[in-house]
């Protein structure tokens, strides 16, 4: 079933952000290293990631919301039929298969299988 999967924040200060959210949420990160931290709050993942200079072929390090979908190809096809434009077609990344589009305000939205 489709669901809100993740809120990803890109930051220049992973350590300060990690410490802040550890303190605020009163819980330890499920994963932490110098480049990232992951907090699970209920079913939603808060992903803190180190900022980077994106090269042309890389995804931009923009804060974004990720929705989990059961079948990414099918979902993307149905979105195209609704005249929505994908910024990145479904593709395999190191974390799995994802596609990207933008909402009317230009926010990056990830669809992840």
């Amino acid at each position: 079933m489709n669901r809100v999967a993740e809120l990803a924040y890109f930051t220049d200060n992973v350590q300060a952000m990690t410490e802040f959210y550890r303190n605020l949420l009163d819980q330890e990160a499920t994963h932490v290293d110098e480049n990232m931290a992951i907090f699970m709050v209920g079913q939603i993942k808060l992903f803190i990631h180190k900022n980077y200079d994106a090269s042309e072929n890389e995804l931009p390090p923009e804060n974004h919301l990720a929705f989990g979908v059961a079948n990414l190809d099918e979902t993307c096809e149905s979105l195209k039929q609704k005249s929505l434009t994908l910024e990145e077609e479904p593709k395999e990344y190191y974390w799995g298969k994802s596609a990207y589009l933008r909402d009317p305000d230009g926010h990056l939205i990830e669809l992840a299988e």
Partner: protein
Amino acid sequence: MNKQQFNVYLPDGLIREIKHAAIDVEESLSQFVETSLAQRLKQSEGSTEMVSLMPIVYVTQMKKSLTFYKALGAQPIHTGQMWSQLTMGDSSFALHGIEKINKRSNQMGLALTAHQPLENIIKALKSKRIKVEGDIVDEAFGRSMLIHDPDGLPIQINEHDPTLYK
């Protein structure tokens, strides 16, 4: 540790329940009451543990944004010009209407649902040296307060009043 007698008045039924519960966990009555009260104090004074996390997307055109997120499969459970809440599966997110998006600081944020009164949360945040700005404000769903993370991203902490918002 020095211990003293402490008289309190409790309903008959509750006293019976406490006695039975202490026997069930094989603790003396004093031990059981001490642990329970200490836990309660810890919960109300030192803890900021939140029930749920809900991403907020700041939008300038609520109607257009609702159409977009509905096309992704989200179902609105409340819509308004300033605030709309949508569900997707068993999770939810919110759209917060604002006039202008500041790319650096307010494109996205979080809403957290507090377990306990916001006054306790403020006390706990202060003890953790987390800066609390502004006042508690009344909202349609209960009460709310705002803080910011080190990157300046907003975090809304909400206390839901079950009589106002289900």
